[in-house]
């Protein structure tokens, strides 16, 4: 369960995130959309205790993120940011093994090895399991980091633009995976997405942000309308249902 109440982040006088409130209690996929600089990543980072909070508070399973021990929170929430692994000459298997750190503290048990194999299989990484990350393609590397997050096995999973570096096939596979994580494993998945159509196709709920504020929050059909998207992105768009799939196109 994720609860954010009037979360605020200031950079100087700029309110990068401005009193954002949201509650995510049940399993599902929630997409956060919005133009660049809307505060999407900053909001996720505050919820996941990566950035200090300047106002309001964030609770994970009722625990205040600023006051709870890091290793306790690490069993409940995980986050994957866009830039990862400055010194990452690790094999995919090693990296995913580090995802088990909150549970094993480095002493991997048979359960941990199982979870690692599961994550490798889930993300189609078995052929590259023993390859170094810096010798992989951008897509494989990205999947390895997502596999690490899955191996961490927390109920709440936050992903900041996980589709970066992925071609269409792998992007679709990644979103299906998010869907399965929510439906089969009961995860609360929150993803920042740039492509509204991926949000339409795979999310249960969409949160749109603009200028640091949450402007709309609701099911796909409610959020993705021409008026709302035009207001959020400041761009004329067409919204159509194509074979039952809500679709948003920019007007050339």
């Amino acid at each position: 369960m994720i609860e954010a109440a009037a979360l605020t982040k200031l950079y100087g006088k700029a309110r990068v995130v401005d009193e954002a409130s949201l509650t995510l209690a049940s399993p599902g996929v929630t997409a956060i959309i919005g133009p660049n600089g809307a505060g999407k990543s900053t909001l996720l980072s505050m919820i996941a205790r990566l950035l200090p909070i300047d106002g309001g508070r964030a609770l994970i399973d009722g625990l205040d993120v600023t006051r709870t021990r890091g290793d306790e929170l690490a069993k409940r929430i995980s986050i994957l940011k866009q830039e990862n692994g400055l010194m990452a000459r690790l094999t995919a298997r090693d990296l995913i093994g580090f995802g088990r750190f909150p549970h094993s503290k480095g002493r991997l048990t048979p359960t941990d090895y199982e979870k690692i194999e599961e994550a490798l299989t889930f993300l189609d990484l078995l052929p590259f399991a023993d390859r170094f990350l810096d010798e992989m393609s951008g897509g494989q590397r990205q999947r390895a980091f997502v596999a690490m997050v899955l191996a961490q096995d927390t109920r709440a999973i936050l992903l900041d633009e996980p589709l970066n570096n992925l071609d269409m096939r792998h992007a679709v596979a990644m979103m299906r995976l998010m869907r399965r994580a929510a439906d089969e494993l009961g995860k609360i998945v929150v993803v920042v997405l740039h492509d509204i159509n991926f949000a339409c196709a795979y999310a249960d709920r969409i949160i749109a942000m603009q200028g640091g504020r949450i402007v709309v929050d609701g099911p796909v059909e409610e959020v993705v309308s021409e008026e709302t998207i035009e207001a959020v992105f400041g761009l004329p768009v067409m919204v159509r249902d194509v074979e039952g799939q809500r679709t948003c196109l920019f007007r050339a």
Partner: protein
Amino acid sequence: MVERHHAGESPTAALPREPAARAAPEPDRPVARDGHPGSPSRRNGQKLLSLGLLTLAVLFVISLFVGVGDLSVRTLLAGTWDAETMRLMLVSRIPRSAAAVLAGASLAVAGLLMQMLSSNRFVEPSTVGTTEAAALGMVVITIFAPDASILAKMLFAASFALLGTLLFLVLIRRLRSKSSLLVPLVGLILAGIIESTAYFVAYRNDLLQSLGAWSRGDFSMILQGRYELLWIGLALAAIALFAADRFTLAGLGRDISVTLGIAYERIVALGLVIVSLIAALTVVTVGEIPFVGLVVPNLVTMAMGDNGRRIVPVVAICGAGLVLACDIIGRLVRFPYEISVGAIMGVAGSLLFLILLSRGRPARG
């Protein structure tokens, strides 16, 4: 180039305080529970580790029999091994070889930690100001408390080293540009500033000669009773191995560390203390030895990756071997004179580093 007779083997050499000589240090064993048994990096690791150990042992034996004094394998075979030869072995040759092993191992591990803490492969304690700050600390304590014990002086120098390194980390965290080459450059500039300060203070207080000894690595003055502080370095390297998982995660960056529940700031602090103590220990006992901390971790991570638990022992052994080899070369090149290990390492290290760069080793990734 420094030319100096082998001080430890002159007849007037100080008598040892401790009678028992110690054997070569037992290197840390790799942790067996870690990793997938069949993974290539693991197999590589075990091969490299045993190869490294063997080479180190051979180098150690060679080092015991290289020097001006009348002590060679021939004396051993000819049976002219007497009390004097034994004394030479215990007072000079074994301590000198052990000092090279200890200094090399701990400096290489310090370099690896420094790289993990700054998430950049092109830094080491002597290029970011740590070592220079330790030398400045020695100058300052020598001015204010010349009679302090060597341990107290070392700890004082370590606190300076800690401040210098902290300053470096604060500077690079504030860098807006994420350019990975800017990080080592900032380090070099900071190191230069601290070094000039040390020289200025030393010059004003007539301590240039002492500062010279601290900033130029040299094993020729090592005798029993004058190097034992370096054993602390090995203990510090063992702590680094113990916390290797956390240091590896720190190398992956703050975000990943925090997500996985690591107290990132605390592990950085631990790393800083280890690096600063190692820098101060070596400055006090043998003087600065450049490039070990840069070249060894880079070569090892190229071959085996960044998983600290696997590479810390290998880095330590390779560092020990490299410094010992450079010291042996320094003793042989102009026999019976010596060239200091700092000078030899400067040449060997910069060559190795140039090769690394030309092979396109990125500062990150």
